[in-house]
């Protein structure tokens, strides 16, 4: 009786571990292949080499795409972080019955499938001449990035210790001073986390980029998509591995920021 229970419990755990392995498989399967000495996309590796990375850094097409992606992601963040942060601070002060509906509307770009946002923006931007421009891409990326900032900052604003604000006020600090010296430092981890989310959302985005960029504005994911569809070679895997490394780096940064803020709170 007890033994069969044990078997079921350990069976469940083993199945869980296999599922987690399945989740990690695609990442760990392709990164080593990008260091393959040969050009076949299979194991065992034919020696180790950095030549596919060298191929990426010596191809103007890829470098141009990296440049575009960075410009777009940084500009997206420059729009999304201030707008999202201000709105989160504002929502905290508002008290009226429609508040949750307002919140739902403001974060709705997160739920609407990105293909719909892409098509809507495409139909709207095409007559304005924004369809084949980085400006159009930045505006559309800001739309999908801003809810991430809003939700993240909103979470840290709602955790704010109101006692500290009242204490500052009763000690004679002006609202502006209280905001600068108390509120901003306390919600800064939320703002930084939101910015990381927004940057990642733009940097990895491909569907909108596919819709509203011409040949001159191809971003890194856009070139990666072309590469995967037209010529799936180790260079494409090197680019994919670079994107994985950037994602992992951003995740690490996010974990550090949240870890530090958790330490501050206790």
């Amino acid at each position: 009786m007890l033994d069969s229970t044990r078997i079921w419990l350990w069976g469940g755990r083993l199945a869980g571990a296999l599922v987690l392995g399945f989740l990690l498989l695609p990442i760990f399967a392709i990164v080593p292949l990008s260091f393959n000495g040969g050009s076949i996309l299979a194991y065992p590796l034919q020696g180790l080499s950095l030549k596919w990375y060298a191929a990426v850094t010596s191809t103007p097409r890829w470098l141009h795409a990296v440049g575009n992606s960075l410009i777009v992601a940084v500009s997206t963040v420059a729009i999304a972080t201030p707008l999202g942060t201000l709105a989160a601070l504002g929502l905290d002060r508002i008290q009226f019955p429609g508040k949750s509906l307002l919140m739902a509307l403001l974060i709705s770009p997160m739920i609407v499938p990105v293909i719909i946002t892409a098509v809507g923006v495409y139909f709207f931007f095409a007559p304005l001449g924004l369809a084949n421009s980085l400006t159009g891409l930045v505006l559309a990326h800001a739309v999908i990035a801003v809810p991430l900032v809003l939700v993240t900052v909103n979470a840290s604003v709602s955790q704010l210790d109101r006692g500290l604000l009242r204490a500052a006020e009763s000690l004679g600090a002006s609202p502006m001073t209280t905001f600068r010296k108390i509120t901003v430092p306390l919600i800064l981890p939320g703002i930084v986390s939101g910015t990381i989310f927004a940057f990642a959302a733009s940097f990895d985005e491909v569907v909108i980029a596919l819709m509203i960029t011409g040949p001159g504005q191809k971003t890194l994911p856009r070139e990666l998509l072309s590469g995967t569809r037209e010529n799936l070679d180790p260079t494409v895997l090197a680019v994919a591995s670079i994107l994985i490394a950037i994602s992992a780096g951003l995740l690490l940064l996010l974990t550090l920021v949240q870890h530090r803020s958790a330490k501050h709170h206790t």
Partner: protein
Amino acid sequence: MTTEKHRPRRALSANAVGIALVAPLALFLLATFFIPLGGMLFLSVDDRELGKVMPGTVAALADWDGAGLPGPAAFEAAGRDLVEARKAKIAGTAARRLGYEASAWRTTIQSTARALPRDIAAVTDWKSTLIAADDAWGKPDIWQALARARGPLTDVYLSSALGLQGGQDSTLYVNVLARTFVIALSATAICILLALPAAYLLASVGPITANLLMMALLLPLWTSVLVRSTSWLVILQKNGIFNQVLISLNIIDTPLELVYNRIGVLVALTHILLPYAVLPLYASMKALPRSQMQAARSLGAGPLNSFFRIYLPQIVPGISAGGLLVFILALGYYITPLLLGGQGDQMLPFYIAYNTLQALNWGLAAALASILLIATVILYALYVRLVGVQRVGV
């Protein structure tokens, strides 16, 4: 007294400051998201194209009763409109629009526009001139189609998206809708099945191990969908890693066909959506006291029995929240089926993009997108009722 006097004013000014802070974002989203989406919804019923190319014809047909052939004035208006359209090189727009009514009329419009004489002052009998150019003009059908297409609104795109319009490809988009639903539902079912043991493992280990294992969930979640789809293509393709391993282990002799079909789509979609199913399930499992299962077992319930009767009913909220979220998300994937599916595995988003960029049938693209948008909004409202707006996306 004074505080009571002050309170409403303070609340009012706090609201005013709050609204002023929310306003920039609200205006930004209005201009770049809500108005474009509204425009897209409108585009799915907008029918002013023909009126721009053939204004005279549209006016002449305005009070035609639709029986038999229209009067000579309509023939003359159509003839003059098509000559003007030829000069302005916009006859293609009218041809395309009429082609949605019946594909043969696309050629009728184009060839008539080409065949009409240059010197229209010499034309006395427009009716016989048009019929000489294409005998379709001698039948009532094309005139009825012109009258239907005169605008300003139409249901032609929505009804062809929903398969309500007769004709050769009337079932194309019904099949696409059904396929999208089936693929999303299959992916959701597989995700829940796989999420159960994964969430159980996370909930049954200590906090430090759980944090470490959580990375196995977050790292893929943070890796872009495109990169993961590319990766699955490398793993599953004919000479890919998976087939090579099976062949070298002598399990199979010939490679399995795992991509450009439903298998590839479902494997990659499941992988992409799985974390969204695990996280809410993990939260609801963690909330369960461990002693409950022990109590059930010590009272003599078998492991399966106590799982189905004690454990499962309590994690149903986690299952339904995760399942609904996965289903909503699954409806909208474009890149994954594009890379891993065959022609028969493309979902609604593919046809939205195809009609926007390749077929250039914006009305139909907008109609398909509107259907997806409305389905998403309804399911999202259901999801919010289930979990509450505060927890969405956190």
